[in-house]
């Protein structure tokens, strides 16, 4: 049984079907790249896995049980621009907000909370910057803070939404390495990305999405141009397919 299972999920937003009959399973140890054109429903899929979008049909199971915010071991890394980077807060306090759902109204962060926060910050290699205000960090460091904030819940499933947007190549490479390690340590990692080449190179699995799952396989089995043409709606002469041939 996979730790994360999406079964027949259909989502409508404003009367339009955004996702149709999605089946997707992610195992521990896997880094799955969720790839598709703009408007394919990638972020909506992540949000419906989290229970933030009402699902018209189907269900999402984590550890075989329906997803429940606060209870299910799922960590979420939203896009970087959702975060108020001008807020006067240190890295460690920002990471602690990942545990706010667990803390509730009446409990202040305790020893166990600070230990979880410290370990997450160390895990993403930000130990020396733990007390730094978040506003002073570079783009790559900011992305690490968001990952640490998700890890503070000690999740078995990690969802990343476009973690590479706006970052330079060396930073992307370092982060990809981190995500792969996080998967190998025994987590199921699902990330949306625009970086096809990087995803083909590092992800253990690729899911092609365009309103529904077009293909779902290890990169080595996705060399046939047909599913790519269907997912991205491009012709045989598209530069996208040329890149695939080189790979």
């Amino acid at each position, binding site marked *: 049984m996979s730790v994360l299972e999406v079964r027949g999920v259909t989502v409508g937003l404003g009367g339009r079907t955004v996702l149709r009959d999605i089946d997707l399973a992610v195992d521990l140890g896997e880094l799955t790249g969720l790839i598709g054109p703009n408007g394919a429903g990638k972020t909506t899929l992540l949000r419906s896995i989290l229970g933030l979008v009402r699902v018209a049909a189907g269900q999402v199971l984590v550890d075989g049980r329906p997803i429940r915010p606060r209870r299910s071991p799922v960590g979420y890394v939203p896009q970087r621009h959702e*975060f*108020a980077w001008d807020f*006067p*807060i240190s890295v460690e306090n920002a990471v*602690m907000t990942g545990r706010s759902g667990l803390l509730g*109204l009446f409990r202040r962060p305790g020893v166990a909370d600070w230990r979880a926060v410290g370990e997450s910050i160390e895990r993403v290699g930000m130990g020396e910057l733990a007390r730094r*205000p978040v506003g002073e960090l570079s783009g790559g460091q900011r992305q690490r803070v968001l990952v640490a904030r998700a890890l503070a819940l000690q999740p078995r499933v990690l969802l990343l939404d476009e973690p590479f947007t706006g970052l330079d190549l060396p930073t992307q490479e370092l982060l990809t390495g981190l995500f792969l390690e996080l998967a190998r340590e025994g987590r199921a990692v699902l990330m949306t990305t625009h970086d096809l080449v990087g995803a083909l190179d590092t992800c253990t699995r690729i899911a092609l999405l365009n309103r529904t799952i077009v293909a779902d396989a290890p990169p080595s089995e996705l060399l046939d141009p047909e599913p790519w043409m269907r997912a991205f709606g491009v012709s045989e002469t598209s530069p996208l397919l040329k890149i695939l041939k080189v790979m």
Partner: protein
Amino acid sequence: MSIAEFLADLTNPDLAFLPKALLIAVMSSVVCGVVGCYVVLRGMAFIGDAVAHAVFPGLAVAFVLQGSLVVGGAVAGVLTAVLVAVFAQNRRLKEDSVIGVFYVASFALGIVIISQAPGYAGSLQQFLFGSITGIPDEDLYTAAITGVLLLGAVLLLHQQFVTVSLDRELARAVGLRVFWLDIALYVLVTVAIVISVQTIGNILVLALLVTPAAAARLLTDRLGAMMLLAPAIGGSGAVVGLYLSWSYDLPVGGTIVLVLATVFLLAWLFAPCHGLVTKHWRRPGIEAPATG
């Protein structure tokens, strides 16, 4: 007037309204300073302004019916805040438009109501610009108790407020009730405004909320420090403002606000890391090249 004379007036039983005014001004500034930190950090100044105007019909009703101004204002303010939060869920309108509709409407309602009261011009002036005389003892107690409850609520909800302010999307994902936290924050802002409105006035109260917190933000990059600095700036601004107003016979609300604005300007110029003058001093730029 010397400070000794001011202290003598404060303890003079014939001037019993003066220490009451001082107490309520300091309490208001402290409470507004703390709550104002969220207002400044979330860019909610317009909402603060809206709520300040929206409490007016409640004050007017309470005034006409001879009821408690604090309760009347709180009911009107909270009602408007909730209406804004509900109407803002409609995606076709942005929140600021909804606010623009409701706060002016409730202010207008307040003016219509108060015009029915005898001697209305004088009381209107008092509501709009504040007054240090005629604060009843029970309002003092109400303000004190409300202030303590409000600070308690801030302590309780702080972690959640920070989480929502940083990243609404993550806050939802970890199971926080973002809508209710927004309402709670609006209510806290309203209550802080209502207990301040009598001394400082309906129009000027926004300054208590925004100016000390904005000055504190310039002085530090740490939230904890900011939330201590803002009430400290607000409280001392209230003391200095009241002293100057009493000494030179100036309107109290206006004087307190001008003192706070001065502190803000000083912070903007001389803040330890980001002040305009401080920066210039540290790194002599092109205008002042190093010689020799």
